């Protein structure tokens, strides 16, 4: 069978036609229809200028961030099968994943490295958007959405940091939550905190940790934030982000 026959056969099957619906002919109409009628493609603009999607211009950092988010979601779900957010066993569960679960170290390392990388790619994406002036009207709202997504990315990275429950995790979160204690009005060490009757057992840090120190309550709270609350928020804001890109169109040289 030749390559041409193979592709012809694939594109003529009912499965292929059912998914992509609009043939393979490379016509402007078919291209537009393919985007219009596909739930995944429809977030993408129907037409983009060749110049505006050049990798020299976009650096492809937004798409890479999205790819990393997908990888993190998949490997994160896999890790949840073996990880229990119980202060007595969380560390041992990580040890099991790293040492005795088949491909466990692979999935955990992919999760860890993709997380580090995603923080980096989101920063670079925002740098590119800033340098090309793509945050300007009519795209200023999408810049705000982007800032929210940056915050969510950092919070995801930070909440995931506690879950291995080792010394690095414990002290990183101990230090990190000191920031909440230093918040104005709501933190015990912040400006006007003491005057407003804020104590170590009723301030913002206490609410975040579910206690005065990093313990079982903090581990469970960070786990729920890391695995449920923050990813759901990211998905919602990503949908708005992509929809705005479609509506506003790609920026780029004319």
């Amino acid at each position, binding site marked *: *069978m*030749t390559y041409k026959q193979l592709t012809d056969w694939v594109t003529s099957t009912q499965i292929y036609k059912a998914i992509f619906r609009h043939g393979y002919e490379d016509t402007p109409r078919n291209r537009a229809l393919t985007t219009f009628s596909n739930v995944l493609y429809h977030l993408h603009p129907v037409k983009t200028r060749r110049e505006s999607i050049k990798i020299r211009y976009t650096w492809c950092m937004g798409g890479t961030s999205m790819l990393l988010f997908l990888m993190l979601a998949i490997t994160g779900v*896999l890790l949840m099968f073996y990880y229990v957010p119980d202060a007595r066993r969380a560390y041992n569960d990580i040890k099991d994943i790293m040492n*005795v679960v088949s*491909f466990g170290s*692979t999935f955990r390392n992919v999760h860890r490295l993709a997380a580090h990388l995603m923080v980096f790619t989101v920063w670079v994406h925002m740098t590119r958007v800033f340098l090309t002036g793509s945050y300007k009207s009519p795209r200023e709202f999408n810049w705000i959405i982007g800032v929210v997504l940056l915050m969510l990315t950092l919070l995801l990275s930070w909440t995931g940091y506690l879950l291995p429950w080792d010394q690095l995790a414990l002290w990183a979160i101990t230090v990190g939550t000191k920031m909440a204690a230093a918040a104005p009005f709501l933190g015990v060490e912040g400006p006007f905190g003491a005057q407003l009757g804020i104590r170590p057992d009723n301030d913002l840090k206490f609410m975040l940790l579910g206690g005065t120190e990093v313990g079982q309550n903090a581990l469970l709270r960070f786990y729920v934030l890391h695995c449920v609350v923050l990813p759901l928020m990211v998905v919602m804001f990503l949908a708005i982000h992509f929809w705005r890109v479609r509506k506003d169109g790609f920026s780029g040289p004319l």
Partner: protein
Amino acid sequence: MSNIGDEKITRRDFFSLVGWAGIAATMGGSAFSFYKYYFPNVLYESQKVFKIGKPSDYPIGLSENWKKERQVWVVRTERGLYAMISICRHLGCTPNWFSDKQVFLCPCHGSIYDLGGNVLGGPAPRLLWRAAIKIDPVDGQIVVDFNHRQDPDPVSTESGLKVDEASREVEPFFIKV
């Protein structure tokens, strides 16, 4: 069927094929690693091979000492000793021993067994399992292999499903004392 030589493969076709092969290899590798990942290599369940003391610890009759912890009854007769698994053969509940009637009754759907595990009534389709046992040569304790089970085909009689007791009193499911 034509050969590759019959029609010229363009460079574009070749790299497209290489690309799809790469995607297929990635997908296949991922699927394999996902599949392997779902089977834990270390279990934190209760031991399935365990010691239950020496034969001399068990007087003639039924011992329920290990029922709660290990799901086995230990039965000592004049001839020897066997370990019967306290899992009902109907749907897996735990039968109770009634010493006045000398039967096991399952609380879920009323299966009735005698001391040998024969079915006297109720929906149970087969006899109670007996686990493989042996004497540890070092400390003389009975070692039970919970997952190695005796499951003979029963004969249907007017008084229930039976198996000849002599045929069940064989190694490794029986220890002569």
